[in-house]
């Protein structure tokens, strides 16, 4: 028989480390349905009948964040057989706050006090017996980092699941208890006896998420409302605050009698000393730049480049194609199938896997920064800037990572707790030009702007401007508006990250990337290869006679308002969606240069765009600031957690790129050459629309 244990606890309480120790390599990582909140499940190493369900790290079971709603719905509706509540022993007061809420759900619960090694080192004493007796549940101690006591904690859950649940602790004072008793009495025939207390408190707090599900009559609700109002008047506070206050008062009393802190006031811990330097008023920004430089130097510098080049040029350039070629030839496969497999599938999937070394290195380094506690400080340092356009400091990291590659940039959005901010950051992060887009910039500036390096720098500024402008515009839209996300963030103490944890984390990410992005790319590669190499009678032909050319001609009109409405422009833009750097190769192929010489290639590309700098600029802007490459699009779909949101992200990004290119080309042509047509009118209208969206006043509800 399967037994389900749910892991619940605050962020930074060591829950992930515990989950890794308990489940080993059996984890399944996905998303909770419809939201971007991660869902992890695994089986207990020593007892495969036990399923461990990891819940998101939360501070409370309030209805205000996605993580909290996901967790409480799971605990209340799915009813796991036991809850293992992890409590950080070095921060026991705030951690027990969640515990008081969990106990009210009425499921068998074990409280595991974690980080006992740090507690012992600090010289603090925790009276486990006393806490267990007061809370009315089993309490165990452990150190997840050193793997001490973790299986004992799981076994305690298995034992607890067999026993009846004791009555939950009496947290609240006289008049609140009185009101709660009234509520309990009037709903006791509607809910399980076990969850009676939970629902009563939720009704008292006027928690709509909860009492919607109970279908209470209007009469009953207004009757109960009177009791709540009486209590509020007596306590001179709102119901929610009364509950929170009393919970903390209760915990304070419990902690003061069961925890002895060896307090040394004024003495700085190592963590304090590190923090003094890293968030120093003068040093914070230069140090951040230095740390980011080191991260980039390792990931994109000699080591990263070597690994990427090796994967692309040697592994998927020679070894794998060579081996596949040899194998296919030996079994006598016909040529076009061989070409499909080698050029189409191996080449295309190789491009995807070529990302893997850099992603892995970037993620290892970012995980170290995250685990050590530095990322929270980065958000702390930069919050002021990002708040101006409706995001928080946490959106900064994806933007920085985005200068390297959009794929890890989108994946690193997971550290943003607020769902709206996370969705917005996923939509915006890839506007910062990545390394591959710089290849387009390079060739186009050579062709049209005499290789002016300022153009490349300028593209970063355009990217930043887009993030700011569309950040503000999105924030004013209904789906992203609403209460500003409170930036009330814990700054955890700095500590050495767990190497094992980092490798498991990075492996999860890389595996997810390879499976999900890999399948989409695999299909896309086959389709594109077929289009490039066959005509509609399914005969093997050159690119110039292929289906792709016909399709390019058919869709070229879309790009006409941007100035490059030719089949070559269309095909190059489509191939840029496979991989941004692919656009340069395609252009080179289509331009028919007189020789391989760079000067000739540049000349041929110029003529492809009618020797018009505005057309060249328009092509460049469109391909840099529209949706990212297929791999990044696939990642965005995955990280947004729903098809609808993935599609919205894609369409939004396409519109931004199209608008930017259209406005630049047409207004540029109007100003410099006096060209005026219907597209010019469109361009001015679009500029006006963006200005209105940007500056319109926000409706306050």
């Amino acid at each position, binding site marked *: 028989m399967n037994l389900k244990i749910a892991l619940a606890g605050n962020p930074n309480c060591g829950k992930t480390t515990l989950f890794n120790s308990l489940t080993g390599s059996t984890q399944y990582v996905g998303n909770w349905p419809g939201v971007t909140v991660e869902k992890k499940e695994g089986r207990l190493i020593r007892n495969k009948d036990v399923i461990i369900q990891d819940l998101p790290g939360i*501070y409370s079971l309030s209805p*205000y964040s996605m993580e909290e709603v996901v967790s409480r719905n799971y605990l209340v509706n799915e009813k796991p057989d036991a809850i293992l509540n992890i409590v950080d022993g070095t921060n026991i007061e705030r951690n027990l706050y969640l515990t008081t809420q969990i106990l009210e759900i009425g499921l068998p619960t074990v409280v595991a006090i974690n980080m006992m090694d740090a507690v012992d080192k600090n010289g603090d004493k925790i009276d486990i017996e006393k806490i267990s007796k007061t809370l009315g549940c089993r309490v165990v101690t452990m150190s997840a980092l050193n793997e001490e006591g973790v299986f004992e904690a799981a076994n305690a859950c298995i034992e607890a699941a067999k026993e009846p649940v004791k009555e939950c602790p009496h947290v609240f004072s006289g008049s609140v208890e009185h009101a709660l008793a009234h509520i309990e009495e009037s709903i006791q025939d509607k809910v399980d006896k076990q969850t009676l207390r939970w629902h009563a408190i939720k009704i008292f707090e006027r928690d709509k998420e909860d009492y919607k599900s109970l279908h209470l009559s209007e009469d009953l609700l207004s009757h109960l409302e009177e009791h709540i109002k009486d209590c509020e008047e007596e306590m001179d*506070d*709102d119901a929610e605050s009364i509950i929170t206050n009393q919970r903390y008062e209760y915990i304070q009393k419990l902690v003061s009698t069961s925890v002895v802190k060896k307090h040394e006031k004024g003495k700085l811990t190592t963590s304090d000393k590190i923090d003094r330097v890293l968030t120093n008023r003068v040093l914070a920004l230069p140090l951040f730049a230095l740390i980011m430089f080191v991260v980039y130097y390792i990931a994109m510098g000699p080591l990263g480049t070597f690994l990427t080049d090796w994967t692309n040029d040697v592994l998927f350039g020679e070894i794998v194609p060579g081996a596949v070629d040899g194998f296919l030839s030996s079994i006598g496969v016909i040529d076009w199938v061989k070409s499909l497999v080698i050029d189409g599938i191996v080449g295309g999937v190789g491009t995807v896997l070529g990302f893997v070394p850099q992603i892995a290195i970037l993620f290892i380094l970012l995980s170290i920064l995250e685990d050590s506690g530095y990322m929270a400080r980065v958000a702390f340092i930069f919050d002021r800037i990002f708040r101006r356009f409706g995001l928080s400091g946490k959106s900064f990291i994806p933007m920085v990572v985005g200068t390297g590659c959009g794929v890890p940039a989108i994946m690193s959005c997971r550290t943003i707790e607020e769902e709206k901010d996370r969705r917005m950051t996923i939509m915006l992060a890839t506007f910062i030009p990545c390394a591959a887009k710089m290849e387009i910039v390079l060739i186009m500036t050579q062709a049209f702007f005499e290789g002016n390096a300022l153009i490349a720098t300028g593209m970063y500024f355009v990217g930043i401007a887009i993030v700011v402008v569309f950040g503000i515009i999105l924030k004013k839209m209904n789906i992203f508006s609403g*209460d500003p996300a*409170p930036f*009330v963030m*814990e700054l955890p103490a700095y500590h050495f990250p767990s190497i094992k944890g980092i490798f498991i984390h990075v492996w999860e990410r890389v595996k997810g990337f390879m499976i999900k992005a890999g399948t989409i790319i695999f299909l896309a590669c086959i389709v594109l290869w077929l289009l490039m190499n066959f005509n509609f009678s399914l005969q093997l032909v050159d690119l110039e006679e292929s289906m792709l050319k016909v399709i390019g001609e058919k869709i070229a009109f879309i790009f006409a308002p941007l100035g490059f409405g030719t089949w070559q422009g269309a095909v190059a833009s489509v191939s840029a969606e496979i991989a941004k750097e692919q656009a340069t190769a395609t252009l080179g192929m289509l331009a028919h240069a007189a020789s391989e010489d760079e000067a000739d290639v540049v000349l041929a590309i110029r003529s492809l765009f009618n020797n018009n700098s505005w057309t060249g600029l328009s092509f460049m802007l469109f391909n840099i600031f529209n949706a990212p490459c297929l791999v990044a699009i696939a990642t965005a779909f995955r990280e947004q957690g729903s098809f609808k949101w993935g599609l919205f992200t894609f369409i939004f990004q396409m519109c931004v790129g199209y608008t930017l290119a259209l406005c630049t080309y047409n207004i540029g042509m109007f100003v410099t050459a006096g060209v005026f047509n219907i597209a010019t009118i469109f361009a001015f209208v679009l500029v006006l629309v963006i200005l209105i969206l940007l500056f319109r006043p926000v409706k306050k509800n």
Partner: protein
Amino acid sequence: MKTLKDVAVGESATIIKIHGEGKVKRRIMDMGITKGTEVFVRKVAPLGDPIEITVRGYELSLRKADAEILEIS
């Protein structure tokens, strides 16, 4: 009304009332800033906002705009 925003770096204050409502208020209280809690203002971020405080033995960062709803004695 004196609020946490007025407290200088390196000083402590006791919260007597939490103004505001909804999500922000609930979140602040969930994090342990309740009536009667003592908080210590540790530092201000390099760009002048947010601030870092010590409450119930741990470090918390909070925007000045949110510190304004915390009335102190």
